[in-house]
């Protein structure tokens, strides 16, 4: 187990290096010139040269890359070029807003989709099943953008059930007042694909021999579904939740832009538009690390869910 963990952790190093180099190359060679963006329209060439000097943009490319690699491994992220806010502060102040919105979305999505999927898979081909499949197909054919535009217009602007947008310093006010509409809309969008996916996972299990055996020995349907089918179908479900988890931390940037939520996703958009390299680099590396950590945890969860799984 320890050897497995060490091997997995060592395997992440080349990936991390690749991420750093790819992001560096993409933004440094093809992105906008940060000095010109920071200098503004009225900057003289001397001023721009001065900014480049200050940011270290004049040094050799390899030296710049080395500076960033050193920053990553010493956790000295530096500060944003555009606002001079330190990257650590930026994370600390934006992450709570993102989590306040994304946490309920992920939780509700999974908790609603699992039982619906279980029920329609059990009565596969029935009227309910076909109705659910039809509704999800319909729901999936409409753009996320339309849900947000129409939802914000109808529930906030016309009916006034929710504030159109806004954010507060208190977590409870946010959860009670500002988060419900974005959460509701995101769940409405995410529920359909989730239900269809989980239904296919359940169907993989529901025709297996052990289900027939359980029925033959007289178990109740509830015991069969929740005691036998669900635990076996959980492995792909956990994989899928694991895939979504890193997104929890960056947030749905569209939701944050639409509802003016001061979260990480919006910050990333701003940083890319301003070629704010320290922020981009930090967010990317930080998310790559989270993604790899979640993948490792997912693999460990397999072992816990199904003792037959061997970790190699």
């Amino acid at each position, binding site marked *: 187990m320890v050897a497995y963990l060490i091997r997995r952790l060592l395997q992440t190093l080349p990936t991390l290096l690749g991420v750093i180099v790819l992001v560096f190359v*993409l933004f440094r060679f093809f992105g906008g010139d940060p000095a010109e963006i920071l200098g503004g329209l009225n900057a003289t060439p001397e001023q721009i040269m001065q900014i480049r000097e200050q940011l270290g943009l004049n040094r050799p490319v390899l030296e710049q890359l080395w500076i960033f690699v050193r920053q990553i491994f010493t956790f000295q992220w530096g500060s944003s070029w555009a606002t001079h806010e330190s990257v650590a502060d930026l994370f600390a102040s934006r992450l709570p807003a993102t989590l306040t919105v994304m946490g309920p979305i992920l939780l509700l999505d999974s908790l609603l989709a699992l039982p619906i999927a279980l029920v329609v898979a059990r009565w596969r081909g029935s009227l309910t099943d076909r109705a659910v499949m039809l509704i999800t197909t*319909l729901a999936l054919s409409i753009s996320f953008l339309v849900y947000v535009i129409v939802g914000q217009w109808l529930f906030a602007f016309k009916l006034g059930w929710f504030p159109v947008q806004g954010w507060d310093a208190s977590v409870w006010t946010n959860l009670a007042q500002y988060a419900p509409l974005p959460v509701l809309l995101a769940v409405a969008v995410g529920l359909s694909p989730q239900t269809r996916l989980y239904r*296919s996972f359940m*169907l993989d299990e529901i025709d297996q021999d052990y289900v027939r055996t359980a029925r033959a020995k007289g178990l109740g349907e509830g015991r069969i579904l929740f005691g036998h089918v669900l635990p076996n179908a959980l492995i792909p479900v956990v994989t899928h939740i694991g895939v979504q988890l890193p997104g929890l931390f960056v947030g749905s*940037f569209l939701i944050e832009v639409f509802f003016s939520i001061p979260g990480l996703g919006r910050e*990333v*958009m701003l940083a890319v538009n301003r070629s704010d390299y320290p922020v981009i680099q930090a967010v*990317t590396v930080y998310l790559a690390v989270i993604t790899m950590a979640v993948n490792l945890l997912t693999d460990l969860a397999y072992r816990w869910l199904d003792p037959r799984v061997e970790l190699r």
Partner: protein
Amino acid sequence: MAGTAAAMNGVWGAAARRFRQDRVGMASLVVVMGFAWLVVAVAMGWLAGDWQRERAVSYAPPWGAAAGPAAMQPPESASEVPLLSLADVDPLAPRYAEWAERAKALQSAQPVLAEHLPMGADRLGRDVLAKALRGSQTSIFVGVMAAVLAAVLGTVLGAIGGFFGGWMGDVLEWVYNVFTAIPGILLILAFAAVVGHGSTGVVLILGLTGWTGIYRLVRAEFMKHVGRDYVRAAQAIGAPAWSRMFRHILPNVSHVILVQLSIHVVGFIKYEVILSYLGLGVGLDEVSWGSMLAEAQSELIQGYWWQLATATGFMAVFVMAFSLMTDALRDALDPKLRGLS
């Protein structure tokens, strides 16, 4: 050679037979074919060629609908304050008459602007229906081309990784890990900075970032097939590696790629909408479902719902037909999975 051709015909023939029995699949195929005809007609300029022309008053409502709320408001009454004559101090006053003379010499054609259009008009008086037709062409073209690019990239890389393994496989796995470790939106924004805007740009962005899923599946399929008897037999009679990869194994896994291709078309069309909303999508002189929806956000608050409704309607019909067709295609090509999702 004749044997393999007959066997392939058998597999695809059987799939075609199964597909024809699927009524939902056939109906959706008809709809998709209709859209395909529309794409060709718009691309050739037979339809919606003049979508940029001003055809009606600004925000003309669709047939059968009352004028928009803003249009019903009475015009602002003229200012109550009497206008002062500035002729004494205005240095340009002596020349106004001369300019009026010269203006008469020029003719400006005022087009006859309609009060109603089938699906209404946008802010610039352009026909929303023509825009939607033109937008369908752009969006479907972008989605299909991006999916083809992603499928080609994923197939070639997956074939190499799965067939050769070894250090080449390791390098490709490393590239895959790097691409999947970066959050999707950051990758897309980064590539957007690289390839620039316009519909070709969107195709490149989506294709270059979206190949990972196909790569993974194709790689797994190739790894499964590479040790099978027919591939080893081909090797024994001296077929080179590329021939075994693309003439022997590829036809046997092409159904997986075909299904993935159509799944990605729908996904990329939805992504194009979001990219266009963020301003990274199609250019200003182009129109797509995404750029129509991006305009629709501010229109809806003013009560002009028709552009939103038209773009959503076109997109919903196409995406739904295409998804149902994909489901039928998968069922026909892989009967084991029938009705799973």
